[in-house]
């Protein structure tokens, strides 16, 4: 099985790899050369690559596979620059004992940071090998040709990488002096190389952490309080301890869990444990209907995301509007899972996790468990798609807390469905207030955008004091969560994509970060961008209408960015956008656009919407998208991300809101948190604009904002209804239609 193979592989690997960071810090001159991508922070070539005498190449990446094909794309990059067949490569990803520390696999940065690092590292490794080959073959390096690791001189003599490979060949600091190939020479990059992990996933291969089976493995389950605030009153654990198969019952403050020999025994013991505990659970959450009003009453830390001032034409018309969105769940299909195993002396711990960041998770876990960093190893193994910070990190600590009760024994813990829904960190509810002035000529002369939101980035690894692992908050001696701080622009977090790409002479964008709010929150795909683009692009349509202009023409009139314009025009062309076309009361189309984070993938989206006025049910019939993600590494993978992002955003927009009552979360299963189903999924057409000479950009978060906004604009176009609150669930749409 995958994880076991890695373990076996690992022991040999450790011998031949000098593990870089500590050493690099000691030998690095005071002001080291700036290196590209993640090479800057992981500067040793042998931290990234190993060329074996056996014809095998090992590529180590700190980025991990979260179901988006990143590891396959990284392999393509390495194979391309090394001039070897991809089949020679073994990818090792996300292991605190083996791979570079690239932080978190998030923010659509795997290609930009990890891919760029690998490109330069592999190009340099190739240059080092060619230098040795040149000496061996009595030729100039520039004259040599390489095919799948076989180096040939003009004389016809040749030598392989594998014959040249020797211990310590890459034991040196990267210089980034070898130029990667120009895109015109790419043969592997730019191809729709099939994903490495799909065959196992469709044949029952062991590929997920859920599939791990270690000798003597036990099964854990946890029992949570009924709400964040509930206090434990009393409990009687004796009956639970006597249940068949129960090996341990763990109780530490409000943290409760069981370990059993068989999984179904753990599941039964969990129910018994839940019934054996009495809680005091007074109302602690706001009334759901008052959520957004309540949010605006909370303390907020305000920062200025952008401010521009310039002379401009006088304002002839002023528009204001307020938009809201609800809490969204990651709602991974597979609940979070981890395996943890303490050494019998409890002096060290190995955790297998589908975390997006093995190093940040290790750092937070080590503090909670009071282990030295070098005694805690975190190994990434794939899990169900996470779409951001779901329960992956929390369940790793849960598993460790249970494994501590049975030292020497591996414990596998998969959350139950309600554990995931009730305790994952949600994408925050948001209030966004906008205003703009239009000149007599129909140009926007000033713009304000105020976003009120809880934190969108409460992951482990926060450099400030505190622990972002939920189980740590439940312990008898609890750890506190770090105080949430704003993330700097241009990327931002709650204010992500709040700063328009459009050229307005005057603008002021304020981010009101609510540090403590009703529900637990953190990073879901796009962070604040989905909400901010909903507001921004809806408001652009409102202004276009006020100015009497076509929405797309109006946007182009405010946008100089050439790549942005090209993407907008490509989507309009693909959808055969007809300026002046009118909705008929039940059918309409809408447009949305964003450059993700203000510095990443451009995406424009047109959707065709159908409204059932009797029920308020909206259906998206089709979506048309154009995307520019810079240089395309894997076109099919990119298309999968853009299309999938649109479909997920249709689900968020039409169906999703985390339900709660004053005494706790009530979205606990798929009936109380429904998502889009097959008959409701739109047809999607996507056109990709390749930019071979530009850096590759992430794409997993590019299309959600534009798709959501396009739906909002399509509803207005179809039915004349400007509904400024997401989600567009039938009850809300019907009520709004009746009011209008």
């Amino acid at each position, binding site marked *: 099985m995958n994880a076991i193979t890695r373990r076996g592989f690992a022991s040999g690997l450790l011998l031949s790899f000098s593990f870089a960071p500590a050493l690099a810090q000691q030998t690095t001159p005071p002001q080291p050369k700036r290196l590209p991508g993640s090479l800057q922070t992981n500067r040793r070539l042998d931290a990234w690559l190993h060329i074996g005498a056996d014809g095998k190449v090992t590529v180590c990446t700190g980025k991990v596979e979260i179901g988006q094909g990143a590891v396959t794309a990284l392999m393509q990059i390495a194979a391309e620059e090394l001039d070897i067949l991809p089949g020679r490569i073994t990818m090792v990803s996300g292991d605190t004992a083996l791979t570079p520390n690239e932080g978190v696999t998030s923010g659509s940065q795997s290609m930009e940071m990890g891919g760029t690092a690998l490109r330069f590292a592999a190009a340099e490794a190739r240059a080092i090998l060619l230098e040795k080959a040149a000496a061996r073959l009595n030729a100039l390096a520039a004259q040599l040709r390489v095919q799948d690791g076989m180096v040939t001189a003009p004389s016809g003599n040749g030598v392989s990488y594998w014959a040249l490979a020797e211990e310590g060949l890459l034991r040196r600091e990267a210089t980034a002096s070898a130029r990667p190939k120009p895109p015109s020479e790419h043969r592997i990059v730019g191809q729709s190389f099939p994903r490495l992990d799909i065959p196992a*996933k469709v*044949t029952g291969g062991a590929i997920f952490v859920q599939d791990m089976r270690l000798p003597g493995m036990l099964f854990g389950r946890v029992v949570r309080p009924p709400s964040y605030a509930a206090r434990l009153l009393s409990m009687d654990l004796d009956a639970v301890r006597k249940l068949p198969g129960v090996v341990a019952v763990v109780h530490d403050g409000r943290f409760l869990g069981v370990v059993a020999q068989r999984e179904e025994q753990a599941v039964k013991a969990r129910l018994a444990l839940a019934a054996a505990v009495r809680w005091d659970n007074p109302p602690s959450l706001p009334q759901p209907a008052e959520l957004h009003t309540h949010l605006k009453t909370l303390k907020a830390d305000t920062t200025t995301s952008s401010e521009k001032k310039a002379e401009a034409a006088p304002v002839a018309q002023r528009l204001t509007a307020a938009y809201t969105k609800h809490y969204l769940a990651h709602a991974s299909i597979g609940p979070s899972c981890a395996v943890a195993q303490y050494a019998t002396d409890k002096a060290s711990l190995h955790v297998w996790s589908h975390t997006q960041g093995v190093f940040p998770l290790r750092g937070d876990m080590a503090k909670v468990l009071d282990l030295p960093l070098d005694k805690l190893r975190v190994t990434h193994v794939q899990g169900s798609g996470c779409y951001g910070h779901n329960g992956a990190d929390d369940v790793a600590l849960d598993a460790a807390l249970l494994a501590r009760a049975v030292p020497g024994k591996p414990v596998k813990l998969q959350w139950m469905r309600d554990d995931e829904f009730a305790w994952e960190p949600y994408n925050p509810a948001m209030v966004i207030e906008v205003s703009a002035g239009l000149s007599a000529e129909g140009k926007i002369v000033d713009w304000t955008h105020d976003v009120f939101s809880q934190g969108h980035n409460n992951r482990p690894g926060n450099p400030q004091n505190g622990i972002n692992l939920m189980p740590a908050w439940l312990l008898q001696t609890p750890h506190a969560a770090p105080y949430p701080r704003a993330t700097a622009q241009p990327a931002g977090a709650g204010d992500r994509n709040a700063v328009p790409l459009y050229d307005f002479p005057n603008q002021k964008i304020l981010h009101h970060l609510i540090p403590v709010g009703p529900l637990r929150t953190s990073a879901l795909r796009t962070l604040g961008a989905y909400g901010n683009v909903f507001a921004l692009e809806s408001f652009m349509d409102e202004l276009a209408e006020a100015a009497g202009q076509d929405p797309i023409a109006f946007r182009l009139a405010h946008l100089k960015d050439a790549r942005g314009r090209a993407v907008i025009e490509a989507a309009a062309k693909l959808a055969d956008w007809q300026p002046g076309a009118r909705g008929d009361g039940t059918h309409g189309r809408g447009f949305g656009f964003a450059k993700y984070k203000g510095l990443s993938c451009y995406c424009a989206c047109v959707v065709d919407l159908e409204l059932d006025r009797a029920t308020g049910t909206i259906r998206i019939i089709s979506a048309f998208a154009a995307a520019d993600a810079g240089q395309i590494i894997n076109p099919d993978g990119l298309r*999968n991300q853009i299309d999938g992002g649109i*479909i997920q955003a249709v689900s968020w927009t039409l169906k999703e809101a985390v339900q709660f009552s004053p005494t706790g979360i009530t979205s606990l299963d798929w009936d109380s948190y429904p998502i889009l189903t*097959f008959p409701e999924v739109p047809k999607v057409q996507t056109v990709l604009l390749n930019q071979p000479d530009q850096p590759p950009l992430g794409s997993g978060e590019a299309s959600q904002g534009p798709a959501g906004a396009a739906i909002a604009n399509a509803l207005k176009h179809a039915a004349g209804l400007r509904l400024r609150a997401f989600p567009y669930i039938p009850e809300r749409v019907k009520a709004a239609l009746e009011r209008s």
Partner: protein
Amino acid sequence: MAAITLTVNGHRHQVAAEADTPLLYVLRNDLELNGPRFGCGLGQCGSCTVLVDGQPARSCITEIGALQGRRITTLEGLGTPDKLHALQRAFIAEQAAQCGYCANGMIMAAKALLDSNAEPSEPEIRDALAPYLCRCGTHNRIVAAVQRAVREG
């Protein structure tokens, strides 16, 4: 704890588990099969789907006590990496997965559909897959994979 005999992918297995044990845990932990996956434990998402006498069943809520003498087929029973079933081949050809956690349910549901309707229309495929949840937004590729399997057999 009585021993229960289950017939899985053509092989008989003696399982030492309580009769009310959900089939899923036995398949995954005793028989070491990875195809059926735990998604909800409530019969809502479909990722644990197997075929019982050819009909799709949610193994997370199907107790083993009711399955003696029944024919259970899992994803592993359709094909292997060396000898893929047409649906598995089609899912790979269409790259019809992102995270792939739901893929088991999709393939098993499609298998049951094609067994009863060899040439389903696209709406028929979507309706048959409606009770199976995908979160990555890979639905259209999954439909295309089923269509490809129909075409290529």
